[in-house]
């Protein structure tokens, strides 16, 4: 066992753990003050329920060596026998690191469905989603047929961002728009909280991406640099377009652009080098900004822009990897179009992304629809007016 690699993976697990509170604040700053706790709670609660599910059956269904490429077996049920995976790092380090990924993925959805989910139904939604959507997708991408096919996803562009982005859209289609959407102004109630969340996310994302090397080596170091540069250039790209289009570079724009860059570099982090992260980041910043218009056009109330940032950002990164992947950076990868690898990788990236997107959409829609038609997924009109904090949690965020 290598203590340095173990130290890095454990550190990375802690960093990724911290991202879910970061995401909670990133989103909570943007909602209206009557829904702050509702948003924080949905995210924090994911840390409770998803971690538990992951330990009981999630991990084993992804990493249990079933011999097939669709779903794992029960070898590691309840985390039994995980020490069998001990090698360069302890098996438990892999459990810890992957558990944090499982937690944050469904939490991403809460940005799209802000201000209108019943808490109990939300809890059920993400629990089922984690098992029926996240677990199989994670298996395919990191330990199954999508990997075998030749598609690359260093830290979760497809498995996490495309997956959660599509799921967010599916749930929005089931629950509909917020009351007052399009007529009332719903400006962010506390942007410093959003900036705080951005800072925490950016910090944690270093562990998210570079921890995925599962070692403290040159690839991890490259991933740190790539991650940071994509965030930086994502911010610049977004702000430039924003300033041209609206006349102002906004704080929320800086935050959003950085996150867009981080999303896009996620699949690429350990496979690209040189100036590539800056190109990927700035393209993501620009395209994600432009993608903000989609929800307007479609009249989807994707309240805090999960589609524009995570779905579009995830697609951008996943596909650009088909151009920028470079085996001189990481010999376990493949060369992309610009590095002499032809169209092969791009095609595999596309197929993987498409399949995951379709699967996630159909299954998520079915789950959300099922809950909606039985116990109900959306709060009633009065509760929505009063806000989630009071009606779902019997609390006030701020008391004078």
């Amino acid at each position, binding site marked *: 066992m290598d203590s340095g690699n173990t130290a890095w993976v454990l550190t990375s697990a802690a960093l990724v753990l911290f991202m879910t509170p970061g995401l909670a604040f990133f989103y909570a700053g943007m909602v209206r003050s009557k829904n702050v706790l509702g948003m924080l709670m949905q995210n924090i609660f994911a840390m409770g329920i998803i971690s538990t599910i992951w330990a009981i059956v999630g991990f084993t269904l992804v990493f249990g060596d079933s011999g097939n490429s669709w779903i794992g077996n029960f070898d590691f049920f309840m985390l039994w026998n995980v020490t069998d995976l001990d090698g360069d790092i302890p098996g438990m380090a892999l459990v810890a690191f992957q558990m944090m990924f499982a937690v944050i993925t469904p939490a991403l959805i809460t940005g799209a469905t802000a201000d209108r989910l019943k808490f109990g139904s939300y809890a059920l939604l993400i629990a089922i989603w984690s098992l029926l959507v996240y677990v199989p997708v994670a298996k395919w991408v990191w330990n199954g047929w999508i990997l075998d096919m030749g598609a690359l996803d260093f830290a979760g562009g497809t498995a996490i961002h495309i997956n959660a982005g599509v799921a967010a859209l599916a749930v929005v289609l089931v629950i509909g728009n917020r009351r*007052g959407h399009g007529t*009332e*102004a719903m400006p962010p109630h506390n942007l410093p909280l959003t900036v705080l969340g951005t800072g925490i996310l950016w910090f944690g994302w270093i562990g998210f991406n570079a921890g995925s090397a599962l070692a403290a080596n040159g690839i991890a170091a490259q991933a740190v640099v790539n991650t940071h540069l994509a965030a930086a250039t994502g911010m610049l790209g977004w702000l430039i377009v924003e300033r041209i289009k609206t006349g102002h570079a906004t704080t929320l724009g800086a935050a959003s652009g950085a996150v867009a860059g981080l999303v896009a570099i996620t699949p690429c982090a350990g496979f690209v080098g040189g100036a590539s992260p800056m190109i990927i980041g700035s393209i993501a910043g620009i395209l994600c900004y432009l993608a903000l218009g989609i929800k307007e056009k479609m009249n989807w109330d994707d309240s805090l822009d999960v589609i524009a940032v995570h779905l579009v950002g995830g697609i951008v990164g996943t596909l650009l990897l088909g151009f920028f992947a470079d085996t001189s950076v990481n010999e376990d990868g493949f060369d992309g179009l610009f590095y002499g690898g032809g169209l092969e990788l791009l095609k595999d990236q596309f197929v993987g992304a498409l399949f995951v997107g379709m699967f996630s959409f159909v299954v998520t829609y079915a789950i959300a629809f099922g809950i909606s038609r039985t116990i109900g997924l959306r709060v009633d009109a009065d509760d929505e*007016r009063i806000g989630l904090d*009071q009606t779902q*949690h*019997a*609390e*006030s965020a701020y008391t004078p």
Partner: protein
Amino acid sequence: MKLITAVIKPFKLDEVKDALKSLGVTGITVEEVRGFGRQGGHTETYRGAEYQIDFVPKVSLRIVIDDDRADAVVDTIASSAATGKIGDGKIWVSEIDRVVRIRTGEEGHDAL
């Protein structure tokens, strides 16, 4: 000159403001308040303890207006702020002796 004060539900503010704008009202002063009334409050829970919170968030508006337009303003607020549900709030009207526009020193009707 009249002073019209209204206490309304917060989410109705935009609607009321737009209605008053259409009526030609040129100034409104608004503040966040908390109201106790028939609507009743709600219970909050903190670590097992339950607190009765009697006050509900409301928004208060103040409008200074010429005597002859006061009734129209009251009616406009009343209709645009109403949801028909308890807690819609109150409007009250009182007499003003003098109004001054700080910028110019204009008084009375010209100050509005």
